[in-house]
């Protein structure tokens, strides 16, 4: 807990330094005119509780704000409160079941009415209403009550000890809604409140002027914003649609826009755009990891839809020599260079950041085809019939390797197929439309949960900085199967008693250093036992115009978290 307090102290310091830098550009609110932002995915709604899409959460973050949020380093910073409650300052109860937030005094909504604890309580009720279909329900998981002893105090009580009580009202996904505005939008009425969902009243630096769904949003500076002289911009034009190339071009080559979000483009394309000289790409690294999941069940089509991918084990993928050799044969630095450039790093881990949770056990930065071959030979998996493909446990080592349709993923597939061929493992490639692959439709045989293939590649991440729930994706109880309508996060169907026990221990541990150690152990256990082959730690690459100051890319929260500090460089 001491370290956590120290971290929070450091973060507060950090927040102060950012303000100090921004102070150099003081002046009237709205002095810098219009700022133009382009997201190649267009926002559909401005209520983060009804859509989990990044585009929707980040566009809404200009208007609605949480009590506390994460800064660029992943530290919590107070936002609508004076300090982040901890055990140290008495804000979190000793038994870790209660957290007390104190809303900053004198805070008002953009319509001039005061922000009170009742708004927070309402937000909790809004999201946990059983008929509302709230996208952020996990943020409020475990909460038994939200009390409001006075106008500015919010007491959140959990059902059990919660080492990480920073779920409710923290981060861009869980902002505070105005009770007065959304009072008639509870439960089944939630999706029908078009006017409210398109024009939420918030505490943020901007207010919605006009919302054109899936097209463009215009914002104006919030006249009641809590910081004098901010935001520097009088209005924001938030355009959506098109593709990442066009967005990058509009910022770096033609200068029509000031900020372009998430430029998932080949490194050489980015470099070429940068030559345009009008903008600069910026990268930030969250916990997103591109990985190959290894199936722990037998996906043989002969087994029929209900046994397929349920019967254990896989004919040969759980052999230690096999998955280790497959990992050794991969040239990760080359994958990074081809696929992501400055927005990628080599990783051997499932949880690559934050550093306190990341494991340092493995090194996988060099390709070793010869070593991989030797490992397979030693294990006795050799090519007995001379067709160039090894046999293991009586079957030829042939894999079906599936992923979603995406240029970079198909490049990766081709390269990895080649490397695996060099160690005598044949793979057949398959790619599926992302909306089907990630769709989770129990009727479709092609979803990533059903995993009717031997290996599959995709990326996954977690929100906030605590990986406990994410590491829970390796629990036996999270395995998708016909009994669960194929729902469940443990897609590789990895299952180990020791792992479950260690995860239970993590859920009971409050000490931050101890949690870090346990998380790293869980990470190692998953990798060591062939749950997945991590490939690339992926960053977020955005670009801003050279005339736009104050941008500091945040991957732990909304990218636009500090838009109040943005200004025009003259």
């Amino acid at each position, binding site marked *: 807990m001491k370290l956590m307090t120290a971290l929070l102290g450091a973060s507060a310091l950090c927040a102060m330094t950012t303000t100090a830098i921004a102070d150099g550009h003081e002046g009237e609110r709205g002095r810098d005119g219009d700022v133009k932002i382009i997201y190649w995915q267009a926002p559909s709604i401005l209520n983060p509780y009804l859509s989990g899409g990044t585009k929707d959460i980040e566009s809404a973050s200009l208007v609605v704000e949480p009590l506390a949020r994460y800064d660029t380093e992943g530290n919590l910073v107070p936002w609508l409160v004076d300090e982040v409650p901890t055990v140290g300052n008495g804000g979190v109860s000793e038994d870790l079941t209660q957290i007390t937030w104190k809303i900053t005094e004198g805070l008002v909504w953009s319509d001039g009415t005061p922000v009170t604890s009742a708004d927070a309580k309402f937000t909790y009720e809004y999201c946990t209403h059983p008929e509302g279909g709230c996208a952020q329900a996990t943020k409020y998981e475990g909460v038994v009550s939200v009390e409001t002893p006075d106008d500015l105090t919010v007491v959140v009580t959990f059902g059990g000890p919660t080492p990480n009580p920073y779920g409710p009202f923290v981060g861009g996904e869980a902002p505070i809604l105005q009770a007065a505005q959304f009072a008639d939008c509870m439960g089944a009425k939630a*999706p029908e409140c078009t006017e409210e*969902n398109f024009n939420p009243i918030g505490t943020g630096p901007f207010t919605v002027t006009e919302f054109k769904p899936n*097209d463009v949003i215009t914002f104006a500076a919030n006249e009641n914003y809590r910081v004098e002289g901010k935001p520097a911009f009088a209005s924001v034009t938030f355009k959506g649609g098109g593709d990442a190339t066009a967005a990058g071009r509009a910022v770096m080559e*033609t200068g029509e826009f000031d900020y372009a979000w998430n430029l998932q483009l080949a490194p050489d394309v980015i470099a070429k755009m940068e030559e345009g000289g009008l903008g600069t790409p910026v990268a930030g690294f969250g916990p997103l990891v591109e990985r190959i999941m290894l199936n722990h069940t037998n996906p043989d089509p002969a087994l029929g839809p209900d046994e397929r991918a349920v019967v254990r084990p896989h004919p040969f993928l759980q052999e230690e020599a096999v998955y280790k050799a497959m990992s050794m044969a991969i040239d990760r630095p080359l994958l990074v260079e081809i696929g992501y450039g400055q927005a990628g790093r080599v990783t051997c881990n499932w949880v690559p950041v934050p550093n306190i949770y990341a494991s340092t056990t493995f090194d996988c930065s060099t390709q070793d085809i010869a070593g991989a071959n030797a490992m397979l030979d030693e294990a006795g998996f050799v090519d007995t019939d001379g067709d160039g493909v090894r046999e293991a446990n009586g079957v030829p080592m042939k894999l079906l390797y599936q992923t979603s349709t995406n240029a970079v993923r198909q490049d990766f597939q081709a390269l990895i197929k080649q490397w695996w061929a060099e160690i005598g493992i044949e793979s057949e490639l398959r790619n599926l439309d992302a909306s089907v692959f990630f769709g989770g439709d129990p009727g479709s045989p092609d979803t990533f*949960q059903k995993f009717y293939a031997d290996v599959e590649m995709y990326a996954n991440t977690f929100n906030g900085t605590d990986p406990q729930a994410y590491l829970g994706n390796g629990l036996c109880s999270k395995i998708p199967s016909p009994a669960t309508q194929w729902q469940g996060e443990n897609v590789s169907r990895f299952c180990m008693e020791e792992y479950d026990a260690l995860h239970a221990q993590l859920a009971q541990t409050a000490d931050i250093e101890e949690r870090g150690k346990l998380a790293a152990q869980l990470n190692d256990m998953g990798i060591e036992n062939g749950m997945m082959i991590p490939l690339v730690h992926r960053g977020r690459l955005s670009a801003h115009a050279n005339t736009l100051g104050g941008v500091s890319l945040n991957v732990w929260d909304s990218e636009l978290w500090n838009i109040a500090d943005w200004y025009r460089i003259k």
Partner: protein
Amino acid sequence: MFTYTIRRLILSIPTLLFISLVIFLLLKLAPGDPMASQPLTIPPEVRERMREALGVGAPWYIAFPKWLYQFFVVEPLYLFDAMLGTNWAADQQRVISWQTRSPVMEIVAQRLPQTLWVVGTAYVVAILIALPIGIYSAYRQYSWFDNTGTFVTMVGFSVPPFFSGVLVIVIFSVQLGWFPSIYDTTLKVVDWDSFVKQLQQMVMPVMVLALQITSQLSRFMRASMLDNLNQDYVRTARAKGLGEKTVVLIHVLRNSLIPVVTVIALGIPAIFGGAIITEQVFKVNGIGQLLITAIQANDLPMVQTLTFIFAILIVLFNLIADILYGILDPRIRYD
């Protein structure tokens, strides 16, 4: 003619109902999930509750009549209310988009102007260019003008807009900096300056679209003119001593226009349908872009409503084309 029109109109009702059922079932059977675009960090139980809140899992015999009722009864009521200031609809539930949780028709109404502006202008420009080219090409068949025209139309036919669109952006936006590469849908034309801006941002998408439409129409015009130029009545007209201008522009052109007018009429629903690719390339965000994003997001109410509106327009303009044919060509009578 009048009874014919009435008969066709009545016949189109079962046709349209059948089309709507087919669209509905096709969408229902297609794989995909409206929650697919949500990040993986949202667990399956939460997704399931979100689906329930949207009414995604409802069986077809409930969902389809509900949609029919909303589309044919509730939506027109809202339209009347909006025009006359009445309150007939009385807060009945409208067709709601799954992506935006807002009425589909409101978004359609919001998108229609930019689509009509861009695609409609392109259509008009294309007609104005295509007809003279087609006429002159046919009159001077195999001349250098005709050959150049053939070459240009072939290029127009074969170059897809995702190539020509990006090409003109690179030339006119990136290199020359004349026109914006991103269409500003918030621009309101109020004075001369904003009108110039509107023209500037329309130039490139109109250019790309018009190239395609021109190619198509001018080939049609040319072929139709050639058919007529070799007819006996043309020789008779010339033998009577009529001037070339009268022969070509009055006798031949009028007769040749009959099939061309039909083709033009049949192309009008496509204007409303927008131009999916061109709209995406220039970020016009009209009906075409709306449809494609709705398909990607598996937003069934939106896709269903849009495709059905297109179906209505196609059936309607087919009828109009048939009637026009009868009016223009006295040899054709339906009764």
